[in-house]
């Protein structure tokens, strides 16, 4: 009896599967499952329904911080020849190295051309999504990674009226905060990536945006005193972090700022969304500035959607991509998610004071790809570098870590001359 039931169940399953595929549907794969992200995604689905009421949307979101679990699931599906209709992927190497070079994606340049939208995005961000002259994914939102968020009350106490412009100015404030019994810089590196998040911005500060971008094109060598200086600065910075950093996540670190225990934290601007959910108003209880030395650069973390070859509902997938490339959809999604649109012609009145500042910088500063968030380099490089920096936080051995960075760069065929 039981066996029969099993057979029956399997049969029904396959049948339903077959029906499913034929249905007028659209399967969207993402890792937007929490907080404002999910609400933003739902708002996009609602907008899609407004235009295409007959299409059934299948939300194939996989939970897990920064999409680490989702990425593994997606790889399995792509390998097994069962791609979703469209999936979320960070702009840059996470898309190009993993899916475009092996030939699993369709170019979407024509969609942008059809919509006359090619010049509505900054060229640098489309370049990140491109391979051999074709664009392969459509950016929906942009986060900035090189931002310092600080507690205004503590800042007033230590006499920080203006955000520091230089590295030395910043250290001076960190020192004063420490003297007053506060943590200078909150860090939560239990999950390791936050340490590299900090370090990549320091690299950007010491190299400058042009040389930093050159690293990924083989124009700048990794064998560079600026990288060594970045390590030295990081070492200095580590004197001002909370001693229990290894027990904490990035949210815990932001909470230290919120609870008035730490002056500042370096984090992507999803921290701004988190501070807002905790009940703070940007510009009132907390302030922000670009990490000193990186004022003229914008470290980009951008979510994009692509079109895999063999998408079961290709027609609907194209409709989806056209929708999310539109100004309307970007202005619906981003204020909810707490990010800025990738398009430059968005309606600024819909965004809060922080996001408007970020939009301004996005339009005017040099855009640089993030390492840890998958844009600059393949995953094998960023994972190895993450381990090296994680060890550095403990050993604080500049020479040894620098040697390790060179080895990792060499393993991944970057310039180390």
């Amino acid at each position: 009896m039981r066996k029969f039931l099993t057979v029956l169940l399997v049969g029904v399953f396959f049948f339903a599967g077959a029906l499913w595929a034929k249905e007028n549907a659209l399967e969207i794969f993402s890792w937007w499952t929490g907080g404002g992200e999910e609400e933003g995604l739902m708002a996009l689905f609602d907008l899609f329904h407004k235009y295409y009421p007959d299409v059934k949307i299948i939300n194939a979101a996989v939970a897990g911080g920064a999409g680490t679990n989702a990425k593994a699931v997606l790889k399995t599906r792509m390998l097994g020849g069962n791609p979703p209709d469209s999936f979320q992927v960070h702009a840059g190497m996470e898309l190009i190295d993993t899916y475009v070079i092996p030939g699993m994606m369709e170019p979407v340049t024509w969609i942008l051309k059809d919509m006359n939208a090619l010049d509505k995005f900054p060229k640098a961000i489309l370049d990140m999504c491109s391979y051999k002259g074709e664009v392969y994914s459509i950016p929906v939102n942009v986060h900035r990674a090189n931002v310092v968020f600080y507690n205004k009350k503590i800042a007033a106490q230590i006499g920080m009226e203006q955000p520091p412009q230089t590295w030395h100015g910043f250290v001076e404030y960190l020192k004063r905060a420490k003297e007053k019994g506060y943590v200078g810089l909150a860090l939560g590196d239990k999950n390791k990536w936050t340490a590299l998040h900090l370090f990549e911005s320091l690299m950007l500060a010491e190299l400058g945006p042009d040389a930093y971008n050159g690293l990924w094109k083989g124009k700048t060598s990794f064998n560079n005193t600026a990288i060594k200086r970045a390590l030295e600065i990081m070492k200095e910075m580590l004197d001002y972090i909370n001693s229990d950093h290894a027990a904490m996540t990035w949210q815990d670190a932001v909470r230290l700022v919120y609870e008035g225990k730490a002056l500042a934290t370096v984090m992507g601007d999803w921290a701004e969304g988190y501070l807002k959910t905790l009940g703070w108003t940007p510009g009132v209880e907390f302030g922000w500035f670009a990490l000193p030395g990186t004022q003229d650069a914008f470290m980009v973390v951008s979510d994009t959607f692509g079109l895999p070859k063999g998408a079961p509902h290709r027609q609907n997938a194209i409709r989806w991509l056209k929708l999310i490339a539109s100004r309307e959809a970007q202005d619906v999604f981003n204020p909810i998610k707490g990010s800025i649109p990738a398009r430059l012609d968005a309606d600024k009145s819909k965004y809060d004071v922080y996001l408007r500042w970020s939009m301004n910088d996005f339009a005017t500063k040099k855009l640089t790809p993030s390492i840890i968030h998958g844009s600059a380099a393949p995953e094998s490089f960023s994972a190895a570098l993450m381990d090296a920096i994680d060890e550095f936080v403990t050993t604080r051995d500049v020479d040894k870590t620098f040697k390790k960075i060179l080895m990792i760069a060499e393993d991944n065929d970057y310039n180390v001359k």
Partner: protein
Amino acid sequence: MKKEILIGLLVILPSIIAIAIFVYGFIFWTVRVSTSNWNSFSSLLRGEYHFVGLRNYKRLFQDDRFIKDLWNTLFFTLFFLIGSMSIGLLLAVLVDKGLKGSQFFQNIYLFPMAISFVVTGTVWRWIFAPGIIPSDPQGVNLLLKKMGLDHLMWGWYTSTEHIGPFNLALIPVIIAAVWQMSGYTMAMYLAGLRGIPVDIEEAAKVDGASDWQVFWRIKFPLLKPITLSAMIILGHISLKIFDLVFAMTGSGPGFVTDMPSIYMFELTFRSNRYARGSAISIIMLLMVAVVIVPYLVSSMKEEVRR
């Protein structure tokens, strides 16, 4: 007779096939991957198999992190076994005395086993979170401070201190693991104790043996098979421990609480170095085999004797 064998074979045939494919087939496949050059997603996709011999294994043994992992596993297993088994035995003896309320405590001790390692890990992470010492301690440290034992406040699993190759940050992890599994060990010992015929004990007492002697000379030797089973079960759990450590501390600052399984997971699913990850899983398989196979062989021999 022959027909019986045939029917027997038919009945177990599906499981044999399933095990052949999903266990041994995949072990073989993992071995094959571990000797390949599949260390990026694109090389995996291309699917061209380049045999590189034992290069992946060689690289692992040159890797500081992996060496640390092996030491961590050794010490974790050692202390986890000692802790769980001694506490388990002690609890079993206490519960077996049949004191008032022993039934109640027996259940209490067993409860942690019903919780998944992920939950245990998360809760103990909060308990041992050090906070900022000395101004703003948390968890255990806060307790110590309130008790006036300030000098005992410590970084727990965030500490990078070590004695030789033993990382002290493993101590909180071992405590959490022992907390979870000692109740289970107790249940095993309890079953063993209750299986010992009362007349043996009584005979010994008539001969003038003290309680202490009854335990060490009679009960404990009779519990030997239980001790062996407990060692095997706990040993293989600890050799491949992943969820508890992953939820509680991750790989820790400077890999002080890293385990081979965590490194394997990160290599395979976070950085796409499939061949290297497979090599770790084969090494882990061998480690568990070293523990399990002698046990299987000896228990099979016993069965044949019967």
